[in-house]
């Protein structure tokens, strides 16, 4: 029996496969397809303090092997989340991670402050990297000082581990990663989507209601994997890799590169059972290649 557990230091996962924020609803949407407790964990849709409507449609446009989304973080806000959703999630035996958003540093902190009083959350994932809420994709994760500042503030407020989610839209991902680490982040997750647009040539206008959106899916894997490769060499805290994972082999590319766990995003839409299949494929790989523990696969890449 292969041991698929992963120790992130601050939390143990059943396996390295986590469903990514914004692509897994509040988790419950996937309950008809499989037993959610089979997952390593899942991250719920990004939460602001108050409910938000999100961006005007069209919110999605498909591109070659990719998807641009400009959902704009609609959501129920912390109160309804705590009252209506969290009680249902508590019954699921897996790591529940809340993706925390904010229009400014204080909002991040107040979301965490509010949720800290609620049971059943394993960690926060700080979404400082969403490219489709601000004009031109601005967000704290583009700047190492802004990153340091928001992560420090949240760490002061939070009694729970804080995973910081980085943006790929930067010149030097290592610099941002180091400043998140310095600010006290317990782990890093990378990456969020790549800032992108699409143009409707018949109407001669941007396709998305928000003009800008974030590119995800298989198209981006070569880029996000490269960032994971760069970051794992330079930080001490665990790195959770994501971007375009839709098969066990894709997940293995990240784990072999040095990510301690992976998040599955867009693939959940295409195959709601994608995460479960990936867990199976990881098991098969370990067996075929003589690894008794998936931990032994991590970071085995030859230089």
């Amino acid at each position, binding site marked *: 029996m292969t041991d698929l557990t992963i120790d992130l230091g601050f939390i143990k996962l059943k396996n390295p496969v986590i469903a990514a924020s*914004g*692509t*897994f*609803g509040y988790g419950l*949407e*996937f309950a*008809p*397809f499989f037993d959610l407790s089979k997952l390593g964990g899942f991250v719920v*849709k990004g939460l602001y303090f108050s409910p938000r*409507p*999100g961006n*005007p*449609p*069209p*919110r*999605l*446009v*498909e591109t*070659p*092997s*990719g*998807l641009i*989304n400009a*959902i704009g973080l*609609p959501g129920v806000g912390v109160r309804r989340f705590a009252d209506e959703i969290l009680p249902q999630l508590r019954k699921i035996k897996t790591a529940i991670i809340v993706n925390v958003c904010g229009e400014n540093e204080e909002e991040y902190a107040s979301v965490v402050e509010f949720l800290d009083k609620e049971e059943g959350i394993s960690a926060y994932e700080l979404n400082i990297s969403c490219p489709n809420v601000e004009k031109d994709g601005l967000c704290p994760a583009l700047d190492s000082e802004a990153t340091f500042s928001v992560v420090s503030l949240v760490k002061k407020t939070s009694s729970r581990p804080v995973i910081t989610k980085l943006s790929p839209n930067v010149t030097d991902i290592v610099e941002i990663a180091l400043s998140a680490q310095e600010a006290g982040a317990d782990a890093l997750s990378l990456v969020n989507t790549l800032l992108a647009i699409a143009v409707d040539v018949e109407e001669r206008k941007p396709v998305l*209601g928000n003009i800008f959106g974030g590119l995800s*899916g*298989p*198209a981006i894997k070569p880029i996000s994997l490269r960032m994971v490769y760069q970051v794992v060499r330079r930080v001490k805290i665990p790195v959770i890799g994501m971007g375009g994972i*839709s098969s066990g082999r894709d997940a293995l590319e990240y784990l072999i590169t040095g990510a301690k766990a992976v998040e599955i995003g*867009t693939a*959940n*839409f*295409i*195959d*709601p*059972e994608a995460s479960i299949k990936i867990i199976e494929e990881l098991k098969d790989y370990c067996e075929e290649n003589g690894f008794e523990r998936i931990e032994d696969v991590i970071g085995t890449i030859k230089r």
Partner: protein
Amino acid sequence: MIKDPQARIIGKENWKDYYLLSIESPRIATQAHPGQFVMVRITSHSYPLLRRPFSIHFKDERNIEIFFKITGSGTGILSQKKSGDTLDILGPLGKGFHAGETLRGKDVVAVGGGRGIAPLYFLAHELRSHGAAVKIFYGGKSHEDLPLKAKFEENGFELFCSTDDGSLGFKGLISDYLQTELQTFNPARIFACGPEPMMEKIAEISQSGDIPTEFSLESVMGCGFGACWGCVKRIRKNNHEGWVKICEEGPVFSGEDIIWTEVEK
């Protein structure tokens, strides 16, 4: 909501750009209602990436049918599949039309424009089985856009056809044809599916005649089951306007709840 990764194509028909696939999927078939849809995976690799939504065109105990028009690469690839191939489908999804007992003995109208006819064949059967008298209005650019005319007729439905070019039936828009005909009778409900300008026109017509309506909307869908927030349209709900996921709360909405000015981009 069922995922059937091995639904077998057991029949295929084709008229120019329009295709009908019969797909064996007993678990989806038994649960399906008119107006619901399925999400079909086009390939096992990454192009095209997302599943594509198709209304359930008809069903029996074991099989469902989808009827579609080639409009891009996904439908193009789908049209190449043949009997015996398997498809990975999710369904039935969404909430369907209200076609129940309350319509018994009443006149009802179902209006389909182009590929929008797809859900209305199943709906028409359901309405008839509940004792409603259904008139089908079926419009297209030319006679080539009305491939299902014969099938509706053979099944004994009363059919009103229109084409923009006059090559078949009434010359003009199907909504204009409906408006003319509404001078002679007063349906208990109008169901419609088709291009948004057509549906908006029908909403206007029916409002003046105070006829309840149900429209099946379209939107680009990321998932089809409520997880992506991608498919929203502006809808009134509990007296309050908001972006509503049409895959979950729709795709069928009551005409009075749809905010047409925002439905069209």
